[in-house]
């Protein structure tokens, strides 16, 4: 036994020393750190594909991926260790693709002042909390959520829509609220329903994806929605449980629909019952940043990128998009197109200023929060984002009046 | 069916349990297998019945060598063993247990018919739908015998079958065994240390000592001859001893006990210093419940337990031990000793005066006790590596030196005559110093020999024999079967 051990040891050490050094590429090496699996058909996969887009369009660039960096899946490692390894491999740009990394990104960035960090969906570069080498980027998916909400409002027959939210924060509240505004508008204006009679219920499972024993079980929650009379459930989480359950119930003959979220191919799980999917297209923003980092011209900034209204689903120009699903009836699809055109017109009338949006469609007074606080008076628009102003879309402190569900 | 064993060897570490054993067993006979504890008889029987493989040697059945692994395979060639504690599943009914091992095609109805037929043949009374947990040991034996016979067994091995059964059941069992050998030509192997049984039943005996076959003898033979064969020397019968009996130490005042199997109603008794009280009864008749209630392992449903006038009724087991009771349970490795701990560790466990263990002192004390109690084993041996007799000795060595009352479940369970006498010598020494002893035993002989008073239990009822010297084994045998009225007459 000991002889074998010695032999193996000697061979191992010998081979170790014989190993050539890892070859380095000339082009940009960038790290992509994901909170979930790179094939989660959701948030993390969208980022991963954004990175692939960079690799395809920036010659010589190479992506290093680290998936599922969270304390449940990888308790043995930290953001610092992963970044250290990536920088060791020559990475000069690190993308941390979750708000889970927001705080750690700032801390780690201090240790690597020569490396550029991008924290997707964060706002520390906007508020000035981040070090000088950290930037943020986000897509204006609120538009797509408005459209998705409209599709739900057009389709519901029971007048009851469920929204499966992840955890509760400003981002998730504003997205749920956008969906609600779209649903309410289309339910009233195209379908002719009474907006006060529309039930829009939000259930938060507690995290971006199912962690057994920690979060609520998304599958069970979707079933609860349908059992309680909803016929459309919208997903706000990173994984496709909504579509899976809707598909299963439709197969049993129920007339139910789902709206997917945050990954372009989100409808593929159950195409027949999918009303559509609002999604992020990180490629263009990442390519822009990577190109500038490669040229040495990037200064960290905070960007909130909108859709290309001429073609929302153009992979090279639009940062967010909406793909209508097969579950949408022809008549409703026509109404939805009309709605999109209306939003496009609105966006044209309220163009971005200094890289920031100035207004979002339907985020117009009179609007109040759940506790009655006035968010915008008649004729006013809710401001998209403003430093130290919680009554903005970005920081939305509560759900809107008319929505059912916890705000905190 | 003729069985031949050729040069069987079996080693357990340092112990040569079976050393070159060869013998021929002819059909149609009842053969007693004798030997003191650790002589290797159980090992040999387990090898023959497939429960253990031999290290070397051969088993020939009707001249053909067989090589089986496991008891099922042994049964297939016609050899079945009835374990001392029958291996039935308590939760299953009689017929369900019976079905176990039968051909898969057998229906429940067929099983019931076959069960009834074989039972009738031998006068067994087995209700097919009774869960086996509710059967007495005697009935469970009967069930196992019926099952093995239905499986076509032609050689039946019985390990201490008369322990824990009533006189009536013993008669039925012996009749059945005789019928099987005389009328059906089966081979019956009887492992027993009860020489009376062997004399009454066997056609010949084989004797093992220290792993070797040391002799065989055609019956009839006298008890003294058999003892000489087993021990190589004669052992004089132990005299009934009587000591000085003092004042009451343990008082039971209308104690009522309810445990899972039995209810004992309103028992009052004063146990006096230096007195030995023997509890007789079939397994689960109330004697174990009474002993455990005395030491606080079972709560009493009513009445009081006092030691030297101090009320212990609500005290815990540990408090009662501190107050002067001592207890040892029947199942040594299940209750009493901790398999995996060494002798020294057991000794250290008994001293709870200090937080740190003084290992040198514990080792020294163990060494002393090993010598004093004549334990075959070393201080650093794990307890389960000792033989049953030596485990019992160690259990005795651990008990406090001079408790007020010792309450002992089957203190000589599984011990050979020599070891059993030795244990009793020890107990009687303590008794001479004023310790009262309450014990039970399935061996009625033991109860008659050592008790000053006897309490016989049957299904929770009890009958007190105030002067044990008037009791006989035969009378007790009938009493434990429930014939209290007859005794009163």
């Amino acid at each position, binding site marked *: 036994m000991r002889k074998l051990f010695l032999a*193996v040891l000697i061979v191992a050490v010998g081979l170790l020393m014989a190993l050539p050094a890892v070859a380095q590429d000339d082009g940009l090496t960038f790290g992509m750190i994901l909170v979930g699996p790179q094939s989660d058909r959701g948030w993390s996969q969208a980022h991963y594909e954004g990175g692939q887009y960079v690799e395809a369009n920036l010659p010589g660039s190479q992506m290093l991926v680290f998936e599922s960096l969270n304390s449940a899946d990888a*308790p043995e490692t*930290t953001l610092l260790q*992963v970044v*250290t390894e990536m920088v060791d491999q020559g990475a000069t740009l690190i993308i941390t693709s979750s*708000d889970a990394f927001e705080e750690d990104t700032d801390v780690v960035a201090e240790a690597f002042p020569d490396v550029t960090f991008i924290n997707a969906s964060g706002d520390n570069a906007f508020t000035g909390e981040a070090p000088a080498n950290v930037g943020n980027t986000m897509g204006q998916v609120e538009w797509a959520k408005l459209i998705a909400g409209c599709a739900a409002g057009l389709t519901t027959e029971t007048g009851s829509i469920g929204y499966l939210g992840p955890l509760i924060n400003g981002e998730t509240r504003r997205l749920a609220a956008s969906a609600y505004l779209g649903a309410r508008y289309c339910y009233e204006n195209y379908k002719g329903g009474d907006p006060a009679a529309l039930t829009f219920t939000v259930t938060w499972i*507690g995290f971006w994806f199912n962690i057994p024993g920690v979060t609520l079980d998304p599958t069970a929650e979707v079933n609860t929605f349908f059992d309680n009379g909803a016929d459309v459930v919208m997903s706000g989480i990173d994984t496709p449980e909504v579509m899976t359950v809707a598909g299963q119930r439709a197969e049993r003959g129920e007339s139910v629909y789902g709206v997917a979220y945050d990954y372009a191919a989100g409808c593929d799980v159950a195409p027949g019952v999918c009303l559509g999917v609002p999604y992020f297209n990180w490629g263009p923003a990442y390519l822009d940043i990577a190109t500038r980092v490669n040229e040495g011209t990037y200064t960290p900034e905070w960007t909130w990128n909108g859709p290309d209204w001429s073609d929302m689903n153009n992979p090279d120009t639009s940062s967010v998009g909406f793909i209508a699903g097969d579950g949408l009836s022809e008549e409703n699809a026509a109404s939805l197109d009309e709605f999109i055109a209306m939003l496009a017109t609105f966006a044209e009338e309220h163009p971005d200023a200094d890289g920031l949006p100035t207004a979002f469609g339907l985020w117009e007074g009179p609007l109040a929060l759940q506790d009655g606080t006035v968010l915008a008076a008649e004729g006013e628009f809710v401001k998209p984002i403003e430093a130290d102003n919680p009554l903005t879309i970005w920081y939305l402190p509560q759900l809107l009046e008319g929505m059912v569900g916890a705000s905190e | 069916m003729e069985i031949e064993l050729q040069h069987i060897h079996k080693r357990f570490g340092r112990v040569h349990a079976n050393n070159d054993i060869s013998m021929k067993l002819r059909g149609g006979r009842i053969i007693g297998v004798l030997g003191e504890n650790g002589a290797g008889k159980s090992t040999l029987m387990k090898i023959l019945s497939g429960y253990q493989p031999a290290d070397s040697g051969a088993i020939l059945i009707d001249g053909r060598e067989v090589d089986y692994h496991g008891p099922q395979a042994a049964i297939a060639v016609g050899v079945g063993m009835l374990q001392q504690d029958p291996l039935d599943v308590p939760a299953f009914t009689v017929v369900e247990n019976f079905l176990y091992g039968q051909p898969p095609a057998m229906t429940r109805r067929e099983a019931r018919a076959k069960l009834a037929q074989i039972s009738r043949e031998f006068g067994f009374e087995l209700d097919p739908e009774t869960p086996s947990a509710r059967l007495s040991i005697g009935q469970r034996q009967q069930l196992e015998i019926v099952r093995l016979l239905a499986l076509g067994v032609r050689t039946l091995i019985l390990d201490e079958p008369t322990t824990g059964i009533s006189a009536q059941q013993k008669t039925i069992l012996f009749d059945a065994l005789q019928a099987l050998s005389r009328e059906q030509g089966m081979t019956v192997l009887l492992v027993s240390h009860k020489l009376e049984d062997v004399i009454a039943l066997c056609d010949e005996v084989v004797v093992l000592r220290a792993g070797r076959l040391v002799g065989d003898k055609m019956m009839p033979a006298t008890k003294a001859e058999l003892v000489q064969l087993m021990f190589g020397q004669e052992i004089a019968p132990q005299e009934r001893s009587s000591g000085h009996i003092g004042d009451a130490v343990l008082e039971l005042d209308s104690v009522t006990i309810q445990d899972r199997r039995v209810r004992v109603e309103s028992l009052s008794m004063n146990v006096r210093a230096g007195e030995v009280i023997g509890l007789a009864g079939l397994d689960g008749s109330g004697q174990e419940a009474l002993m455990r209630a005395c030491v606080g392992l079972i709560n009493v449903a009513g009445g009081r337990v006092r030691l030297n006038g101090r009320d212990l009724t609500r005290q*815990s087991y540990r408090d009662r031990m501190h107050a002067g009771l001592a*207890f040892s349970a029947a199942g040594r490795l299940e209750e009493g000793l901790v398999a995996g701990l060494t002798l020294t560790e057991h000794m250290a466990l008994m001293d709870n005066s200090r937080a740190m*263990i003084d290992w040198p002192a514990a080792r020294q004390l163990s060494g002393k006790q090993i010598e004093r109690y004549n334990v075959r084993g070393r201080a650093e041996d794990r307890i389960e590596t000792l033989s049953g007799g030596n485990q019992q000795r160690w259990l005795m060595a651990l008990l406090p030196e001079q408790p007020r009352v010792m309450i002992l479940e089957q203190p000589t369970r599984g011990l050979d005559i020599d070891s059993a006498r030795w244990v009793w010598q020890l107990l009687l020494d303590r008794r001479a110093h004023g310790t009262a002893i309450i014990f039970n035993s399935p061996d009625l002989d033991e109860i008659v020999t050592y008790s000053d008073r006897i309490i016989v239990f049957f299904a929770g009822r009890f009958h007190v024999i105030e002067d044990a010297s008037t009791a006989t084994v035969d009378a007790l045998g009938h009493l434990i079967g429930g014939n209290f009225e007859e005794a009163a007459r």
Partner: protein
Amino acid sequence: MTANRTTLRVALLVAPILLSLLITAVLVLAVGKDPIEVMTAILEGAFRNSNAIAGVVNFWIPLTFACLGLVITFTAGLWNIGVEGQMMMGAVFASWAARTIVLPTPLLIPIEIVLAMAGGAFWGVLVGVLRVRLGVNEIFGGVALNALASVIVIYLISGPWQPPEGGSAQSTPPFPAESLLPEMSPEFPVSLLALVLALVIILTVYFALRGTRWGLNLKATGKNPRSALLLGVPTTQTALSAFIVCGAIAGIGGAYRVLFTFDSLRPLPSGGIGFLGLLVVLMVANHPLIAPIVGFVFATILAGSTRLRVVLQLDQSLAEVLQGFVVLLVLMANGLRGRILSSPRSSPEVVQEQPAPTTVTSAAEAASHE
């Protein structure tokens, strides 16, 4: 134990680890990668420089705390699945101190650690009380309390302890610098205090199990609670004390996660380290000195695999496969060792040795009679 047996013991621990490396190498070949490169990446990832070694040590420290706690409960025959929750509660209590108490570091750290021990012990005693008083199997009780601890953590993070800019359910705001465990040096970022504490606890547990009455009580209770009770061991108190001590030690591990690994309370601060600890302790059959060594092997493989994933872009499951093989093969070797070492000593009465550790099927029963 003779020298020969010790050699065998060590060989039977090392051999399966090497064998599992070999099997993994074959698997790596099968997916078209170079196994040598894989092993190199792991070893480099773990030991390339002092920073990398620190990464291994920083995973090893909480794992060791979990392991040592579990050695105690396993010795008492208890399957303390709840160790994960006990770590989490240690983290919560330490977090409370770090957030609330304003004191200089040398005063604050001991308070945090004591509170973490109290938190873990509290969670441990709950499992114990459920076990000995209500007869709830400690496995079920542990699972339930793990879930509850996790819910409490998430509640605190997204509720009362959320950052001022609003909860994101990701973490509390960073604790003040004074409340965190200081690192030895930037080149070797490891908490000296925690390292020393880990070593002290390893030795303490070792000697407590060997040399104290309490350790012997644990052992007796674990092997046979009925007999232990009859021999005068207070089995109920012993079982409870095992849960308390295990919880307290695991609580330190939890505190380490929030006061050093992170700088704030995060969801699932224990990160499954407690479960890994269960595996390790099972593998080494409760040995308090060998558990930290095997724990180090695991820490090496896991921490080293970070580099593996970045450099070779291999799926993370590879490290898990490797870990799985290590566990499986070591457990098999344990069975083998049981046969080799115990067969010359087994007695005619005991045909099969009981697997260690045994569950205390009748402990509750035994306890109820106490």
